[in-house]
């Protein structure tokens, strides 16, 4: 039996929990710190590509997601935006972003005038415990962002054969 080294699961997990408790962005458990920073850069680049460089404001967007997911294969999330959805004041698009996935943007949902509520639900592939971001484009040109953290026990990259 191999003895757990200094980088054992227990240590990184404690560090992870401590980091989360400190309110910091969660330290990636499955990726090294360098990859973690790269992923963060990808997320920021994906946000800038949507907002054309503008910084989105925090608020108005609620991300409903499970705090703990058994596997990352299909994590159900709902992105809800506070908006009256009238012709003059509405959400024109909702974007879903994943801070630690190999591809930061998961989907871009343009909402037409027939859309009755600024809300989208879908299921995501998640590669590690991470934050799910919802970014909303408003008809007045502003951008709003919200997020939720999902702890993933088994990442989507090791998923088993789907029958």
């Amino acid at each position, binding site marked *: 039996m191999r003895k757990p080294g200094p980088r054992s699961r227990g240590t990184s997990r404690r560090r992870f929990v401590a980091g989360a408790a400190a309110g910091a962005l969660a330290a990636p458990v499955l990726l090294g710190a360098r990859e973690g920073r790269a992923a963060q850069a990808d997320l920021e680049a994906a946000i800038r590509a949507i907002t054309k460089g503008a910084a989105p404001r925090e608020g108005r967007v609620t991300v409903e997601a499970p705090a703990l997911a058994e596997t990352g294969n299909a994590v*159900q999330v*709902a992105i809800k935006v506070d908006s009256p959805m009238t012709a003059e004041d509405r959400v024109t698009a909702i974007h879903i972003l994943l801070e630690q996935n190999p591809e930061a943007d998961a989907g871009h949902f343009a909402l037409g005038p027939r*859309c*009755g509520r600024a*809300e989208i*639900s879908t299921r*995501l592939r998640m590669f590690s415990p991470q934050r799910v971001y919802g970014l909303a484009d408003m008809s007045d040109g502003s951008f709003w962002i919200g997020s939720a953290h999902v702890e993933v026990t088994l990442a989507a990259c090791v998923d088993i054969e789907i029958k």
Partner: protein
Amino acid sequence: MTARIRVPKQARRGEIVEIRTLLEHRNESGWRRDDQGKAYPRNIVTRFVCTYAGEEVVNADLRRGISSNPYFAFFLRAAETGELVFRWQDESGAIFEEKARLEVV
């Protein structure tokens, strides 16, 4: 590939109606490997569009972060009796289409 959709048959004018859709599709990301270590060829659903009486409700540009059997739920405002058309397209060029009728009273 089968599309499963849930649309109420009837709604009152102005009512906000939930629409749920699921396309049975592997939505293969190209990230998954078989037991020989060979990657399954990528073929994801890149586009999902729902129209109501010819007007778009949702038009989604999709990436690899969406799970297999892509599921989407959203809301429309019932305005008139009309047809709902659901359309998915994957990277092989295959198109899947499903229709439903919403009666507005």
